[in-house]
């Protein structure tokens, strides 16, 4: 990562020396990655949705000028750009910086400082001090950077030399006084004291100062880290998943657009433009041939909206094609079409091999399809589903041909006889977007819909129970949990699974968990109340003031209800805290609370599905299992709701 950053800086310095934007001429193959070489310079080049860019631009303008009413300025102090990796958050900012003409002061944790630290704590604090110093300097001493008294390079040199900190400035492109602070490489926020200081530092920057010069706006860029299920420690679940977002956004005046994964259409366009530039601008060193449209499509598809990885994959695809495509060494944009058709004629085998090589690593599985693969339990020689196109059915037949039948089992084990599965556990495990414990929760939430009778349920649920039990013994990451969960589920589910328009739901476990925590707080309240009552009862404090929480939860319910009804009847009894209803009141209700239905774009885990609707989503088409016919979903669930109430 630091290496990549360095690269980027180096390149930006270089490009700022060369202000020409559209007509870039790369005369040497400098060995840089395409990601850096063809970084967008204008808004047209950006593959980000126009509205997002517009949001950021408006925010920036408001931050600098205060918007139309000129009053918004003090509310535009911190902008948080969030979103998955590779959705052009930083690039958008840089492009806008170019367009609106402001400087970006970026904080970087310098590795050399941290590496040398032996007594970690003191050294680390010192690092944070540097961070703070950077912030103050950046917010107050603006004329040092923007007054063009000295050349850009020397000002930069002065900064670094005067304060061993790694604050680095972009060289100002013009003499405008505007700049903003970019925080991308945040200090270690998992360390609580550091986090507190970080907040304090940001707060102090946000609070309007008396001076007429406003502090520069701050932009924080947070990439969503991957999703993780809950491990042994419940706290980890909350913290580990999205600590960045929560911890940083805990400051007021923060708002910001969330970047979505880049839509395939936009990405394809951008990649095509990139290829065109690459193969036209530098005929002298652009070895290889431009990849075909097929390859491009696969690259786009497999990137899952991560444009950085898409560009990487594309570059790799071009390199890998090198040996075979020796005849078309130099090529101009004009002949591209012809060469493409030539390649196609040369044979799809080559292209496919390249594809395989490029995409295998990048192909990741959307949670929705992962659940589909597990829960539909497709096996060899399943009749093709009705909604499948002929092409897909043929693909399934091809797959079946590759599957080896398992050896026949002896008579006494015939119960366990299954046809060969079309699901490859190893692939699933390596591509899964969620970890085994979250997968367990998803399976648990949904498996009943896919079973025909309770015997099948038994197998699935016993497998989950086993997984949880074994996981309890072992440290957090057991390599067995994932295969056990999937295999036991596949083994137990009927084959083929009857299609009833099942809807995969998100696990309600997390909600229950929250409710439980609240109820335990209620128990705590009542416990404290009991202690107080006893003390005020004039008896002195009894030596056994400890009502254990479990006792309160299980045994005090009846009494609490009697108190409640007694007070309703007019007798004067001191009231226990209201929160007791959280655990003492348990009405019987029939029916099932359904969970949220899992959508194709959801990444799993709680509230992540609540992304705002965007046109981009409609355009996204993802490979893999087709969404099962959702329309006739009413039938099965209606039945479930009709179950007559007990008693």
């Amino acid at each position, binding site marked *: 990562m630091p290496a990549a950053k360095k690269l980027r800086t180096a390149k930006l310095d270089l490009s700022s020396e060369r202000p020409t934007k559209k007509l870039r001429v790369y005369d040497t193959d400098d060995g840089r990655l395409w990601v850096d070489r063809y970084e967008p310079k204008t808004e047209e080049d950006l593959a980000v949705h126009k509205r997002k860019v517009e949001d950021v631009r408006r925010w920036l303008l408001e931050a600098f000028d205060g918007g139309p009413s000129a009053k918004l300025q003090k509310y535009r102090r911190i902008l948080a750009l969030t979103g998955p990796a590779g959705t052009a958050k930083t690039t958008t900012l840089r492009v806008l910086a170019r367009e609106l003409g402001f400087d970006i002061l970026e904080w970087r944790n310098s590795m050399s400082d941290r590496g040398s630290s032996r007594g970690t704590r003191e050294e680390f604090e010192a690092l944070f001090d540097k961070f703070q110093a950077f912030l103050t300097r950046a917010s107050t001493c603006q004329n040092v950077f923007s007054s063009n008294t000295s050349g850009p390079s020397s000002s930069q040199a002065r900064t670094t030399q005067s304060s061993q900190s790694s604050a680095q400035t972009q060289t100002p492109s013009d003499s405008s006084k505007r700049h903003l602070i970019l925080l991308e490489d945040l200090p270690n926020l998992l360390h609580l004291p550091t986090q507190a200081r970080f907040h304090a530092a940001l707060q102090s920057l946000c609070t309007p100062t008396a001076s007429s010069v406003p502090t520069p706006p701050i932009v924080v860029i947070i990439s969503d880290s991957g999703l993780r299920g809950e491990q042994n420690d419940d706290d980890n679940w909350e913290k580990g998943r999205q600590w960045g977002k929560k911890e940083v956004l805990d400051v007021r005046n923060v708002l910001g657009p969330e970047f979505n994964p880049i839509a395939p259409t936009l990405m394809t366009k951008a990649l095509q433009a990139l290829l065109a530039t690459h193969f036209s601008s530098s005929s002298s060193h652009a070895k290889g041939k431009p990849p075909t449209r097929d390859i491009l499509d696969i690259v786009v598809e497999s990137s899952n909206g991560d444009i950085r990885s898409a560009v990487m994959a594309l570059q790799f695809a071009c390199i890998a094609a090198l040996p075979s495509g020796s005849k078309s060494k130099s090529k101009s944009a004009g002949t591209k079409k012809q060469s493409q058709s030539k390649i196609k004629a040369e044979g799809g085998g080559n292209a496919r091999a390249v594809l395989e090589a490029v995409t295998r690593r990048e192909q990741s599985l959307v949670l929705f399809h992962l659940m589909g693969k597990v829960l539909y339990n497709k096996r060899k020689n399943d009749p093709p589903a009705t909604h499948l196109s002929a092409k897909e059915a043929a693909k399934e037949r091809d797959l079946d041909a590759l599957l080896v039948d398992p050896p026949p089992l002896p008579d006494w084990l015939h119960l366990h006889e299954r046809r060969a599965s079309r699901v490859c556990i190893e692939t699933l495990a390596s591509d899964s977007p969620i970890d085994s414990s979250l997968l367990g929760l998803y399976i*648990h939430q949904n498996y009943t819909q896919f079973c025909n*009778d309770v015997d099948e*349920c038994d197998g699935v649920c016993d497998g989950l*129970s086993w997984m949880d039990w074994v996981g309890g013994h072992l440290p957090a990451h057991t390599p067995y949990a994932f295969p056990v969960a999937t295999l036991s589920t596949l083994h137990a589910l009927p084959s083929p699974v009857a299609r009833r328009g099942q809807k995969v739901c998100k696990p309600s476990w997390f909600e229950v968990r929250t409710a439980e925590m609240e109820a335990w707080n209620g128990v705590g309240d009542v416990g404290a109340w009991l202690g107080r009552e006893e003390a005020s009862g004039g008896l002195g404090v*009894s*030596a056994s003031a400890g009502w254990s929480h479990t006792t309160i939860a299980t045994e005090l319910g009846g009494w609490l209800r009697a108190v409640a009804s007694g007070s309703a009847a007019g007798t004067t009894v001191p009231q226990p805290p209201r929160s007791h209803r959280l655990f003492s009141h348990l009405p019987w209700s029939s029916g099932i609370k359904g969970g949220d239905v899992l959508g194709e774009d959801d990444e799993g885990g709680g509230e992540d599905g609540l992304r705002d609707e965007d046109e981009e989503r409609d355009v996204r088409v993802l490979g893999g299992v087709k969404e099962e016919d959702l329309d006739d979903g009413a039938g099965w669930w209606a039945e479930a709701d009709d179950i007559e109430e*007990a008693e």
Partner: protein
Amino acid sequence: MSLWVDKFRPRTLDELHYHEGLSARLKSLAASGDFPHMLFYGPSGAGKKTRISCTLKQLFGNGVEKLKIDQRVFISPSKRKLEINIVQSNFHIEITPSEAGNYDRVVIQELLKEIAQTQQVDLNAKQRFKVVIINEADSLSRDAQAALRRTMEKYMSNMRIILCANSTSRLIAPIKSRCLLMRVAAPSPEEMQTVLEHVAKKLRFDLPPEASQQIVADSGGNMRKALLVFEALKMQSPDLSGSLKIAKPDWETYCHKVADLIVQEQTPARVMEVRSKFYELLSHCIPPTVILKTVAERVVERVDENLKADIMHWAAFYECRMRIGNKKIYHLEAWVVKVMSLYKVTKHFVYDFDMSEFE
């Protein structure tokens, strides 16, 4: 106002109503001057804590009743803050380390070390040692128990430990061997009635014998529960005559209804429904082991003789897994499904049998 349970709790060993033999032994122990580590165990509501507090009073006099409640903050190895309530007097300290969950070892170690390393400074104190009471000792983790074992030996001169547990089975052998075991059995129905009458006399009203019998029968040997029910009943119908309806706690009726659901129908959809009920119970702080036990007992009442043993076997099996695992719902549900599939088989069997009779 305080709960009757607290208000009429015996304060001295002489006031205790039942287990006279035990009281006498505790008295002589307290008088002997050589007081061992102790482990009180017995079913809940039998009077363990009451006996402990009486013993303390016997040991130290009235000073133990001057209590203060502190909240102490411990830092777990992962820098998490743990807040633990500590009840203490000049002579003793009472903790419930299981409140700290997985980090009970930290709490035990820190606290005991701190207490053990300070001598009793009060020259008027009757004993040279302090007493540490550890509640819910059977839910201590292995780690914490191991930590305890070492401390018990090391600081014997300054400190005595009194453990309070429901059963000794979950305590490691070294701890058991270092303690004097005191079994506090559940009171017999007659003894419970005496207690109830005693309370009624203190409050100056008459308790009809039918009512007290009913309360005792309902409480299942749990004195605390009996007194709570008694008080609730008195609040609802002040004269305690006529047909009394002892209200079960909501969760108990709920569990019974869940059991009925299981017996009525055995389909995946029903599994789903039962799960949502379990979720409800869990989110009302009912411990999963209690849920499993209550539901299982009810199911067993309603099935054929030949199934009972199996159902209980699986309940035990999944409870064992549940104690180790993290996600209790898996195990509860796995048990339900197991029972359903067992029950379904026998139901079909009976059905087939009947059909063949007719043919």
